[in-house]
């Protein structure tokens, strides 16, 4: 058993729902107890869809357990077919139904519905949401793709690509498709099929008619694309076009695969100039911590270092399926890869590294808020505000513009930072004025919590006692002896440092004192440490 409060991913049947909801003309009959319909509201509320997800739940209750549940499944499947008349159905079990061992595959086969019915095996106690989505899409493609379909002869037509991977509840999938479709169009390439988002089973049947595949989201589409390579010989463009450089690499790869001139692609990016302009100088070597799904985290690391001039101090992902890719990327930046689905480990890593910017999921946003570190969201899971009304792709040239704005805004702008330092004793810049410029609203300082380690809060609260008690991720209590502590004078000086770098200054000073074997921290120690760590 694993003790958890927060999960980065839902169960695998939620992944299957993401595929079903993305598609048209497909219906999902899910053998599940009463209550599992909660997942509907992820789509109707977070993604703000105006339709119910095309999912029928058997909603069995305790009194149905026994022979009745199999019958319940069949009548639910029958009713769903009669009512919705889908082109194809997927059927499967949620975690509880997996335990009662009705067989959706056999039960639906026995019904002999006049449409393709695709049974799903989603092991709920081993796998998670992304895996469920990938497996579901793969099974749909495998079952529905017409193996005799091949691309028409190339003479006199534009090359055609499939865009593979976008789903319902995907982070910015809606706008990424628009951006990439536009980009391909500027190169003279047509999108034959986007799937699963917006595709029908009939569309999937024609998937083989494209010349090649563009894999936008490996977490969702990798399994299906491998099968398409094998079955149809379609090549795959694997560069994920997130960031200016990656978009250019993407264009080069597409051009090579499609046999077109890469110069046709229209570069509409402001990012290189924005990043070179002098107001961005203060971004140099800002220390950034990156966490999310592997695809977005790896892409973000490249943008952070190569295109914004940040220093990547931490890189991690929550989906183990792509751990190898993330480890390889971490080597490029000389950091320890962090592969975990335990948010407490992520919190510990952030607290220990004291980055100046966190790029992560909504969980990291809350961790960063607590630690008073600026943060931007780069990856699912995300909350409703990250399914925006406005156009905001992550991919392509417009995506690069969006990344620049959304990552830089939480940081204090260069001129503003300069003024803050100059006028730090002015009342507008005092602590009590709050952190509204961090992009989190007007956050009052949070009360220190004795149960969650937080270096910024914890040490401030415990300095007077000389001992701090914190909990590591295993839950054991460890007692850390601290130096005699800060002299009143040094403490006062520390408070003059703007709050958003104060945590780091405190930490650096204490580490310096410990290394030097100093038991007391004086004004001298503070400035010695500042000199020591100057960069």
């Amino acid at each position, binding site marked *: 058993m*694993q003790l958890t409060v927060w999960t980065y991913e839902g*169960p695998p049947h939620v992944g299957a729902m993401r595929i079903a909801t993305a598609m048209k003309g497909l219906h999902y009959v899910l053998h599940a107890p009463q209550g599992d319909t909660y997942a509907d509201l992820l789509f109707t509320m977070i993604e703000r869809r105006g*339709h119910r997800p095309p999912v029928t739940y058997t909603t069995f209750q305790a009194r149905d357990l026994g022979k009745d549940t199999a019958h319940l499944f069949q009548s639910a499947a029958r009713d769903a077919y009669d009512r919705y008349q889908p082109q194809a159905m997927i059927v499967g079990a949620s*975690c509880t139904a997996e335990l*009662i061992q009705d067989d959706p595959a056999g039960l639906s086969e026995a019904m002999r519905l006049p449409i393709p019915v695709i049974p799903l095996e989603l092991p709920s106690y081993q796998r998670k949401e992304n895996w469920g989505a990938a497996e579901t899409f793969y099974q749909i493609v495998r079952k529905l793709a017409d193996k005799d379909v091949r691309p028409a002869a190339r003479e006199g037509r534009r090359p055609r690509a499939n865009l593979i991977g976008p789903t319902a509840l995907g982070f910015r999938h809606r706008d990424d498709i628009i951006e990439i479709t536009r980009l391909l169009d500027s190169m003279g390439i047509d999108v034959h099929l986007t799937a699963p988002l917006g595709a029908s089973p009939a569309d999937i049947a024609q998937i083989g008619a494209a010349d090649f595949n563009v894999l936008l989201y490996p977490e969702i589409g990798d399994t299906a694309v491998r099968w398409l390579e094998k079955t149809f010989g379609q090549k795959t463009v694997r560069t994920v076009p997130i960031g200016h450089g990656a978009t250019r690499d993407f264009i080069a790869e597409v051009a090579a695969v499609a046999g077109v001139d890469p110069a046709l692609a229209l570069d509409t990016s402001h990012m290189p100039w924005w990043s070179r302009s002098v107001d961005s100088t203060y971004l140099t070597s800002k220390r950034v911590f990156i966490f999310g799904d592997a695809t977005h985290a790896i892409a973000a690391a490249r943008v952070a270092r190569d295109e914004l001039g940040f220093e990547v101090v931490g890189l991690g992902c929550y989906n183990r399926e792509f751990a190898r890719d993330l480890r390889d990327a971490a080597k490029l930046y000389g950091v320890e890869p962090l592969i975990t689905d335990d948010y407490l480990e992520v919190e510990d890593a952030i607290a220990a590294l004291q980055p100046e910017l966190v790029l992560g999921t909504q969980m990291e946003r809350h961790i960063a808020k607590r630690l008073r570190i600026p943060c931007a969201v780069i990856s699912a899971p995300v909350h409703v505000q990250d399914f925006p009304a406005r156009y905001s792709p992550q991919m392509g040239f417009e995506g690069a513009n969006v990344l620049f704005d959304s990552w830089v805004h939480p940081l204090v702008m260069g001129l503003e930072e300069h003024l803050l330092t100059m006028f730090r004793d002015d009342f507008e810049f005092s602590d009590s004025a709050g952190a509204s410029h961090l992009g989190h609203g007007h956050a009052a300082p949070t009360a220190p919590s004795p149960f969650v380690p937080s270096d910024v809060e914890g040490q401030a609260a415990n300095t007077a006692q000389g001992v701090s008690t914190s909990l590591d991720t295993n839950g054991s209590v460890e007692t850390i002896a601290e130096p005699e502590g800060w002299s009143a004078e040094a403490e006062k000086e520390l408070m003059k440092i703007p709050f958003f770098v104060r945590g780091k200054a405190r930490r650096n000073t204490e580490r310096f004192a410990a290394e030097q074997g100093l038991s007391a921290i004086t004004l001298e120690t503070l400035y010695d440490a500042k000199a020591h760590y100057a960069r």
Partner: protein
Amino acid sequence: MTPALPLTAPAGGDCAPVLRERNDSDVLRERGQREVFCGLTGIIWLHRKVQDAFFLVVGSRTCAHLLQSAAGVMVFAEPRFGTAIIEERDLAGMADCNEELDRVVDRLLTRRPDIKLLFLVGSCPSEVIKLDLSRAAQRLSGKHSPNVRVLNYSGSGIETTFTEGEDACLASLVPVLPAEPAGAAPALMIVGALPDVVEDQFLRLFAQLGIGPVHCLPARRAADLPPVGPNTRFLLAQPFLGETARSLEDRGAQRLDALFPFGAEGTTHWLHAAAQAFGIDEMHFRSVIAPGRERAKRAIDHCRERLAGKRIFFLPDSQLEIPLARFLHQELGMAPIEVGTPYLHRRHMAQELALLPADTVISEGQDVDRQLDRVRLAQPDLTVCGLGLANPLEAEGLTTKWAIELVFSPIHGFDQAGDLAELFARPLRRRDMLRV
């Protein structure tokens, strides 16, 4: 100074409404797909009420994901609930499962030494594999006594719907309540978790009425469990507490039958039931409640114009539907078309039902597709439903009020009556305002 209040009882001098019989056959019972939460969801508000309790769900990733989705932003505030996620290896053998649970609980209690009461909450997976959580609770109670008491209940979807999770939780507390001392004077117990602000209002009113001692179930701290016995009179503050009421009655306590305290009339009737049971003078009762009652009526009046005559359709969710429909009909003049409830407790709901119009369809259970067909046919002015249905119905041009808010917002009592009416008036006002 205080004018004698005309309590708007339909007949007679007391507050008892005239009961109109509704036959069993009047109730539409349906089975089919249900679009409802499971009882685990109750944890979201219960853990805030009992300040030193922790709710540990023994379930799957789905359970954890549900809590996360339902708790929204609350998940990040180091809440006092979590899920022990059953994994593949736990399913291999039962002994292993119990050892694993002990390990998780040990770790949790080390991490949270402030916890005094731990609920092991059963889920669909734990019920289906027949993991005996009551034995686990006993074993762990022994191990961690006297610091921590460990109890268990089921919040599984196969057994409980949404607010029934609170019922199961409170019912699990009843056997461990201390017995009232022999020869104790009659005491009043308010049963059902209420927001602190509402609970305080009620406690003040009872004090002014001269009713006491008054206890609350659940109490705000685990150590303050209220005593129970034959001299305990209890008022249900919530309509979904059938099992808890039965357990209290098993211990000799007596339920005071009343309307539920929504709106001016419901609250008056509810308080009056206690006043009568404790022999409070009628004039005194009226003078004590007059200011609150007047305020409630004034506050409700703001919404009357917008809501009167409007047709409302309730989909089943929390069992609050019938008392709320009664309030909206009785005090705001709304016309309930269909009032759906996940479970109908006839005895507790008898007085409420009697006040609903005879042509209102009462439905118990759900076949969601068929019920939505009825909604579309009726084209109600306002449809009360869950968040999975609200936006899709809005997209079809129907105005909705999402039901979960009614469970999380303070809506009971005189001083929340205006807010309660406003919750229903606001979607209609917004519908009329928007020009997009």
